[in-house]
């Protein structure tokens, strides 16, 4: 356990993480894990995160050590695609029983590893630790080591019991396991000046294949993709790449950064969602490879491909313009990915509402990204009824969001499109963007909506539940407005910091009582912004809004 906590600490110290860099020593110790609220928490565990990050390695046997809950309730639930082995989709678990809990599960784990090797002979086995065996002290590192020696095969311990933290911690712990046990353990047959790693891409719905043909055309070789459609051996020799692209936010930043540190592989953070982002990423890959010794003509060829693909994509999108005229999209997601599609949506003539997106210059996008980072929290905290009101108030024609809010949209008879994880279509690269437009058009113009919005023959129009929900919300608002005491209560109860559940009233009182003038001061007294820090902006606004006399009076 001590080595696990050391690893966790190390992950928290990640200097590549922008959020971390702004934290004090003490804060960093506490890590990015916000304290979960019993009875009010959502989201997967660290084991879930580790599995998400590593399961797309297709030829590996993924063996979960724990009772049936961890694997039995969750297997075969990800949409990554494989071009070869289907071993990754099979499920292996020790399904620990009561006897194992009493006498320890190490023997069963060892036997399980042997069975998997005998039956499936994979190039490697990843063994995932979960909570119960961690509690009873099963030492998976020791078992993996013994099994690896005995069977002459890599058996990699992934130490990520669920209760150490949330999914994103699990992503990083998975990365640590790769760095410690796999990367750099084999050598490629040959190398080229065009070898890159893609880090943090899971090939969901096979969408990376919407981009890969372009890389192939340019002669750029993906030495290893971590982990979508990845293979164990490629991972083991990935340290010979010339450059790396890190996609999908910061899930595996530790891998990218440590590979730079250890093997001198420079990386950049990029995305293949959206036309502009795709072009930028291709350019950046070419630039880095040239810097590492690839011939300069690579850039010319890259520019030619970009010009051709962009022209094709814009031409394809052109046909949607009349269909999208005056149509409004409500974007609800904190996902960074979705921000790179904003430009393309606007280019196609859609108006984005519900957020403060106006132009889509680069700086704007950055700012919005930040803004939506906060809103993502708020949306998680919103009641479905509030969300419905937001839909109505925005007068949106379609909602794009992650899976969580789909029920609200669908029940409200509102066209909806999933743009997060569990969707069935790929939206990557130039082709993916056009596909996204197609899907939006299909959803918008489906004749079903008009039928669903009609009241049942025995209902009067206007007394359906939608109308009732709106009336209730309005009535509540009116009631609150009419009662100044309640109104003040409600105003003060507005949550500002979602991580630490701190409301406006608490912050105002603290400001008044201690004459605070800075976010740090507020944090000291209320713990607000002590979590992800996304509410800093809101606290600044509150500080500005405080009348000066109040401050003085409190002195």
């Amino acid at each position: 356990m001590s080595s696990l906590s050391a690893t966790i600490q190390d992950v928290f110290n990640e200097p590549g993480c922008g959020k971390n860099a702004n934290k004090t020593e003490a804060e960093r110790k506490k890590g990015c894990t916000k304290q979960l609220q019993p009875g009010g928490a959502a989201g997967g565990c660290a084991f879930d995160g580790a599995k998400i990050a590593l399961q797309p390695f297709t030829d590996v046997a993924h063996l979960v050590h724990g009772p049936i809950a961890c694997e039995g309730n969750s297997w075969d639930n990800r949409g990554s695609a494989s071009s070869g082995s289907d071993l990754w989709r099979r499920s292996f678990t020790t399904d620990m029983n009561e006897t194992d809990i009493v006498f320890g599960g190490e023997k069963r784990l060892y036997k399980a590893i042997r069975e998997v090797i005998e039956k499936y002979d994979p190039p490697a086995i990843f063994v995932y630790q979960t909570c119960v065996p961690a509690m009873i002290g099963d030492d998976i590192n020791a078992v993996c080591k013994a099994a690896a020696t005995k069977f002459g095969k890599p058996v990699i311990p992934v130490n990520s019991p669920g209760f150490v933290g949330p999914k994103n911690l699990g992503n990083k712990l998975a990365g640590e396991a790769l760095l410690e046990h796999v990367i750099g353990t084999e050598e490629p047959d040959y190398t080229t000046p065009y070898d890159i790693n893609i880090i943090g891409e899971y090939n969901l719905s096979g969408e990376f294949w919407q981009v890969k043909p372009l890389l192939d055309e340019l002669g750029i070789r993906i030495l290893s993709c971590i982990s979508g459609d990845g293979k164990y051996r490629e991972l083991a020799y990935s340290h010979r790449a010339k450059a790396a692209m890190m996609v999908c936010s910061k899930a595996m930043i530790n891998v990218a950064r440590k590979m730079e540190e250890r093997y001198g592989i420079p990386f950049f953070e990029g995305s293949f969602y959206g036309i502009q982002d795709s072009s930028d990423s291709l350019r950046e890959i070419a630039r880095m490879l040239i810097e590492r010794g690839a011939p300069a003509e690579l850039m010319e060829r890259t520019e030619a491909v970009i010009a051709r693909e962009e022209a094709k994509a814009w031409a394809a999108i052109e046909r949607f313009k009349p269909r999208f005229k005056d149509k409004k999209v409500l974007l609800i997601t904190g996902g960074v990915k979705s921000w790179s599609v904003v430009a393309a949506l606007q280019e196609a003539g859609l108006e984005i509402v519900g957020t403060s997106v106006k132009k889509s210059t680069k700086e704007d996008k950055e700012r919005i990204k930040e803004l939506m980072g906060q809103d993502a929290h708020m949306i998680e905290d919103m009641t479905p009824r509030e969300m419905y009101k937001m839909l109505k108030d925005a007068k949106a024609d379609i909602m794009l969001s992650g899976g969580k809010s789909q029920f609200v949209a669908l029940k409200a008879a509102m066209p909806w499109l999933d743009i997060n994880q569990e969707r069935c279509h790929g939206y990557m690269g130039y082709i993916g963007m056009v596909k996204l437009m197609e899907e939006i058009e299909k959803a918008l113009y489906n004749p079903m909506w008009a039928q669903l919005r009609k009241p049942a023959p025995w209902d009067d129009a206007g007394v359906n539940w939608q109308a009732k929900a709106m009336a209730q919300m309005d009535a509540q608002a009116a009631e609150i407005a009419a009662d100044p005491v309640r109104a003040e209560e409600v105003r003060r109860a507005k949550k500002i910091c979602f991580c630490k559940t701190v409301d406006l009233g608490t912050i105002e009182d603290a400001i008044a009582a201690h004459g605070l003038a800075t976010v740090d001061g507020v944090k000291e007294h209320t713990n607000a912004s002590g979590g992800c820090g996304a509410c800093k902006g809101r606290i600044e606004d509150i500080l500005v809004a405080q009348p000066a006399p109040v401050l003085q009076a409190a002195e």
Partner: protein
Amino acid sequence: MAIVTASKKACSVNPLKMSQPIGGSFAFMGLRGAMPLLHGSQGCTSFGLTLFVRHFKEAVPMQTTAMSEVATVLGGYENVEQAILNIYNRTKPEIIGINSTGVTETKGDDVEGFIRLIRQKHPHLEKFPLVYVSTPDFKDAFQDGWEKTVARMVEVLVDPVEAGAARDLARVNVLPGCHLTPGDLDELRTIFEDFGLKPSFLPDLAGSLDGHIPDEFTPTTIGGIGVDEIASMGQAAWTIAIGAQMKRAAEAMQERTGVPFRLFERLCGLIPNDEFIAFLSEISGRPVPLKYRRQRGQLADAMLDTHFHIGGRKLAIGAEPDLLFDLSSMLYEMGAEVAAAVTTTTSPVLERVKAQEVLIGDLEDLEDLAKARDCDLLITHSHGRQAASRLKIPFYRAGFPMFDRLGAGHQLSVGYRGTRDLVFDLANLVIGDREANHQPTPDTWRTTDSGLQVVPPQLH
């Protein structure tokens, strides 16, 4: 008599089984205004929740006590207390249903003790309905979690009744096993009502997870049976338990209230429904409505039409005990051979499955057996999809979870009508498979060199 054996493997491959805490939470989802709460780490709830959402394609309420590593060592009193208070304040539920998990059972949290303390400390919760069930992950399976949880609901929520108290003769308690879909419950409700009976379903997933559009957005369950209705179940004339797993709850009901019960282990197939309908006619004192006489005729006709395709099929089935027993028996009675049967947990019905052997195992076992015994029809839940594509035999999805096809909540197997639709679906699947994969060719019947061997066509 089938011999029941348990797999000896150290590594379960492609599990058929799911954990019992989520079976417990599933039962709580059939209560009105309920919030199922798992006492464990956040991941346990998250996985369960995802599974239910993917199956029903509905928003599903479920919460966690969010045990951290430290809390699992120190004990979970504070987490349980905070969770209950938070849920109570934020979602205003009518009941909170708590199931333990492997994480909290390993430490051995005394949750009943916690609840007593919480009620003392927070007088406003003194009477608030809280039901706790111990359901460690490292024992038993999904169906057991449901079984224990419903039995516990009866013990805690049903008001005891004086011996000799007046009963409402039209009222029946219905205790459905977890193998019935919301669609099945709706079908049963109609049947009861057609006999003039007033059924109370415990739990009632038809009210909560049938995909209707709610009048209100609520964070807890919508629909389902209310706590008040459960309390008065002791006034019913009869309890009808469906599936052997519900015997425990039916017995608890009888012990508490004196309401006699009748257990129907199966409701799929002609004979089981004859018994069921006859019983309803008897307790209601009404003749069987014309509608069911006609439906029986339709089922008989459907059996005639479909037995050509189902008869002789070699069935490989993987399901929890009650579903396995029900479906495999019906198909056996249609002339199929139950060649491979794999289940998740022990049950008294298993030895009566019409197979040589029933294995408590996983989907790898089922796949291997199906291959070795040349099975040509596979029935299991959605996790069987990989096996089906490797075996290349017709695959019918039944049970929970069904995440890769739509309409899971409405799939029927009970009643004359449900059985009728099911045998049609199965026969059509077989016909479709024959058309796609087993068309005769000029060489199909050609004698080979040895002069004796023929390549048999796959025509059944």
